[in-house]
């Protein structure tokens, strides 16, 4: 393992980061996902050495580094606002860390040029930061951090200040650079899509606690925490009110789920595995309910249709084709059909 946080705690005024344990592997792109105010930045600054934890231990490649000052840890941080040095050229920004570590000027410049090459900012080296666009500034900030990196880079919402198009481009670039350099990236964001796109593993912080760590696929296919599932935008999560053999009851609707190990306080019905139809039909699917259309919203390639089965509001993903064929309007009466395997219990 590369980075290990053991029982880290930190109190800052009224804010408290309760006990936290986390391991980040070598060469991993780890994304810490959570809403603002949960202490993601505090955690990054603890790892960087800018803040000292009240208790707990930080280990890096097996060594205890808890009390080592930031300049000797070498975990460069990249902030959302870039924090470029405004009184220095791009080149001076990039070689700042190398020079601080005592590297000679010629050598530092040569190394900076290589990194600039990697990030496609070679033509900008003599410019001042004020003369750069947001995307260029972000690349310079990344270059400045990468050039001194001793294996771990800390990224604090690095893409939230740029517009969507540029963000998507920079996301791909971040991923490429992480792979090319083999540097461990610890990236903090509140953007679910970004986390899923970039992370080999994603840690979800909610209510000041690290609630879940796993691959993006696990996050979406195997929810184990209703708050996390809701935060990442999963729909159709319902508390279970009552169990029967092979069935459960959620919001008064009796749903067939087959044999499951009890207790499971929540169920998740996968929106893409529900079928909508004008007429009831015979099938192997054990769940079929008459329902009424509430409303809908267009997504990238699908339409999310909300239908009501009694008190249960179900989100169903349908293609544009089916949406038109079903002639959906508010109050349209349809049938919703799904197999018991479309229901995930947790």
């Amino acid at each position, binding site marked *: 393992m590369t980075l290990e946080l053991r029982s880290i705690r930190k109190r800052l005024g009224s804010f408290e980061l309760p006990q936290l344990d986390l391991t980040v592997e070598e060469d991993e792109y780890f994304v810490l996902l959570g809403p603002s105010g949960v202490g993601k930045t505090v955690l990054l600054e603890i790892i960087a050495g800018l803040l000292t934890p009240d208790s707990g231990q930080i280990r890096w490649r097996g060594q205890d580094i808890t009390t080592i000052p930031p300049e000797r840890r070498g975990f460069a941080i990249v902030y959302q606002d870039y924090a470029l040095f405004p009184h220095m050229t791009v080149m001076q920004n990039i070689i700042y*860390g190398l020079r601080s570590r005592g590297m000679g000027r010629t050598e530092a410049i040569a190394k900076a040029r290589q990194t600039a090459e990697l990030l496609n900012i070679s033509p900008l080296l003599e410019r001042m930061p004020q003369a750069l666009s947001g995307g260029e500034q972000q690349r310079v900030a990344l270059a400045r951090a990468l050039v001194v990196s001793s294996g771990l880079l800390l990224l604090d919402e690095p893409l939230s200040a740029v517009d969507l198009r540029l963000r998507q481009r920079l996301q791909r670039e971040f991923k490429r650079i992480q792979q090319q350099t083999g540097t461990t990236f610890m990236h903090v964001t509140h953007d679910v899509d970004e986390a899923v796109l970039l992370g080999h593993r994603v840690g979800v912080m909610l209510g000041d606690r690290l609630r879940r760590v796993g691959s993006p696929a696990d996050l979406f296919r195997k929810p184990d925490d209703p708050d996390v599932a809701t935060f990442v935008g999963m729909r159709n999560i319902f508390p279970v009110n009552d169990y029967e053999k092979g069935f459960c009851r959620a919001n008064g609707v009796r749903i067939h789920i087959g044999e499951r190990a009890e207790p499971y306080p929540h169920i998740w019905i996968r929106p893409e595995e529900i079928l909508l139809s004008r007429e009831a039909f015979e099938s192997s699917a054990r769940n079929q309910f008459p329902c009424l259309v509430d409303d809908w919203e267009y997504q990238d390639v699908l339409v999310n249709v909300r239908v009501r089965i009694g008190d249960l509001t179900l989100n169903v993903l349908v293609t544009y084709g089916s949406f038109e064929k079903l002639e959906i309007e508010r109050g349209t009466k349809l049938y919703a059909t799904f197999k018991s395997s479309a229901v995930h219990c947790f």
Partner: protein
Amino acid sequence: MRKYRLSLFSITFLLLSSVVLAFIIAPLARLILAASNQELGQALHDAELWSSIWLTLRAAAAATLASTLFGVPLAYLLARTRFPGRAVVLGIVDLPIMIPHSAAGIALLTLIGRHSVIQRAAEPLGINFVGAEAGIALAMAFVSVPFLINAAREGFSAVPDRIEKVARTLGASRTRVFFTISLPMAWRGILSGMVLMWARGISEFGAVVIIAYHPMTTPVLVFQRFNDYGLASARAAAVILILVCAAGFSILRFIARPARTESL
């Protein structure tokens, strides 16, 4: 309707602003215009006046430079750290602005007077405070150092702390961060604080006159001439001092002007 109200607003504010500007300009303009060419001609060849101006500028500059050495670290600490009693320290820094300057002079005199421990310790080194330039500089420093500290503190506060944090994580020690990041980014604030402090030192009368009537700084000289020979005699000295200061500050303000493309 909206336009009418807006212009009423503008007119009212412009009128009120002009009154206060006129209040500042009028006495100065009147003073300069009232001084006759003959008076000014005499003053220009007045060796006593010129030596007092030179003394005043020099003592204020010495006070400013020495205070910068001690004041800038304090300003940095006040801008960057939160410690118990910070509010008290901020209050202490502002004290010299609040107390009457004659009282400040008396207080200083009790500390560095002829029979004080400090004066006795300084004597073997050939330093005298009372009735001497070192004492004048001290008096000037005491009453004007808050301007320097406060301006420098604001200069440091304007440097985003993330920039300093990034520099640390890149491998720079706190000392290196201070000299390569914080100080260069805050220097305009520090410089304008120095200008302000220098100006305040030059204009000091109350504290200086208690520590040293002689040698005479220009404000003391103006007072003495007014007392002994009347308005006309004091007028020319005052005009020369004002003109010298105005020229000096214009130059310094120009040097310390904000950069046109200030960002971050």
